[in-house]
């Protein structure tokens, strides 16, 4: 019998990292936790998705209370200026890798509020977005399919929005400042 001797192929550090990253990706895409930030109307389709009717826990997903714990920032619909400030704040708080899913028309190109003075038009000007789900509002099925799309993106290493945010940080910041004037929140409470 021919003996097959196991000869370990030495991996470079980059390759090792890549392997680890793939393993990590497996876990990450099978356990996506949402940050329920009800930025807009599409949030109303999330309770059905989370609760009994569509039960997204089957996919390993669930809502989380705080940004630190969450993997997905779910932008559910339109973003008013006031929300965007807090959204950016929230996004920056999330631990990496983090993904952004945008629901509905509004984050794509403004939706029904495209000419409103209070609502931004394109979310990807301010933070990178990994998956968009069309619809106004998207049906729960569409939302669920959107999440699976995101998982697929992660699997194929295409959900790199958070890296983009680092790479183009100054570009994003500049856009934020153009639209918001000031990104940080200043009010009685934040002094």
């Amino acid at each position: 019998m021919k003996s097959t001797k196991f000869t370990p192929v030495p991996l470079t550090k980059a390759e090792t990292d890549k392997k680890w990253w793939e393993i990590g990706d497996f876990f990450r895409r099978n356990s996506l936790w949402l940050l329920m930030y009800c930025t807009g109307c599409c949030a109303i389709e999330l309770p059905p998705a989370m609760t009994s009717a569509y039960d997204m826990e089957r996919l390993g997903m669930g809502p989380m209370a705080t940004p630190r714990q969450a993997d997905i920032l779910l932008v559910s619909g339109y973003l008013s200026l006031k929300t965007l400030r807090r959204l950016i704040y929230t996004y920056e708080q999330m631990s990496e890798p983090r993904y952004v899913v945008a629901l509905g028309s509004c984050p794509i190109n403004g939706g029904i509020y495209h000419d409103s003075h209070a609502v931004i038009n394109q979310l990807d000007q301010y933070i990178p977005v990994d998956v968009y789900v069309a619809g106004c509002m998207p049906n729960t099925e569409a939302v669920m399919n959107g999440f699976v799309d995101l998982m697929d993106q992660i699997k194929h290493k295409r959900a790199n929005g958070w890296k983009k945010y680092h790479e183009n940080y100054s570009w994003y910041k500049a856009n934020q400042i153009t639209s918001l004037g000031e990104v940080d929140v200043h009010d009685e409470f934040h002094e």
Partner: protein
Amino acid sequence: MKEMKLFLGPQHPGMHGNASVHMFVDGDIIKRSYLLPGMLYRGFEKQMERKLWVNNIALIPRVCVPEPDINEMAFASGAEKLLKLEIPERAHWIRMIILEFARISAHLMAYGGLGGPTGNYTLMYHAHADRNNILDIFEKITGARVYHQYIVIGGVRQDLPKGIEKDMHTFLDSLESRLKEYRDLGIDNASIIKRIKDTIMLPAEVVWELGVTGIGMRSAVNKAYDIRKVAPYARYDQVEFEVPVSDYSDARSRLDIKIKEVQQSINIIRQCLEKMPEGPVRVKPARGQSMRWTVPKGHVYSMVESSRGEFGYYMVSNGGTHPYRVGVRGASYPQGLLGIEKYLPGTRIDDAALWVDTMGICSPEIDR
């Protein structure tokens, strides 16, 4: 101990919608608080002025997301008042069915929302499971789950689909049989009663001071102050229903009324299905293509009883194709802004989320 700053929301599981309650607490007691609205501000009233009467129907449901139909009703009936338009009889009854389903849906959501602050998620899951059935019925009737855009100026957009009555009856029967379960799991549950009994009080004087309406008002003043009874619209004067009231308004009694109102809504829908005449469902407000429909000059305040209270549209027309000004009175405006400023202090931080929940605060209608 020094006052500590805390904020409930905008991103907070206990907050309904995107708003923030800022609190200054001492220990567990809230010393000072206010609502920070505007997170959902879309410039709604401005947007409505810029849209035609006809394509405003795409915009108005978005004022209040959990119960969009009241907006359509308030807007459509306001415009009809300005137009002095008589709509077909059947349309009135269909509108009532839609409005009552919306009320049930909103109540279920609010009642299930009790599961958040009190931690009884099973209640929330059950309520949402039932609510999802309503959404499915809505989808069959109107073609959309949430933004129905169904009640339009001149009636309703199209007739009920065939066979929908059966679906409705099936749903109503099953919901009715489960109302007891909801009570058991929620307001009659000993562990939850501890949280909701004798807290979050809303005495009658406060009601008048703030201008709270709806369940908040009825639970405190012990009178059937419901627009459906007091100044009936649609055909509410032709159906029999009771308005549950109470003279002691704590969180529990308000939730109790909510469940009782669900029962009443079920009764109303059944009566509607029985009494609804056949016939047309829509008249056109004017001749010509819809983009050239105009509404005569005038001011009108059009009001609807929502699940949270009096919901009104102040509408002004200058005779053109666009509304000149539309003002929205969100039902939760008084308790949401002034209420939180004045009457949330003194409660504990545990109560804040429950306060927001049981007072019926819907942030999109405050911000608009």
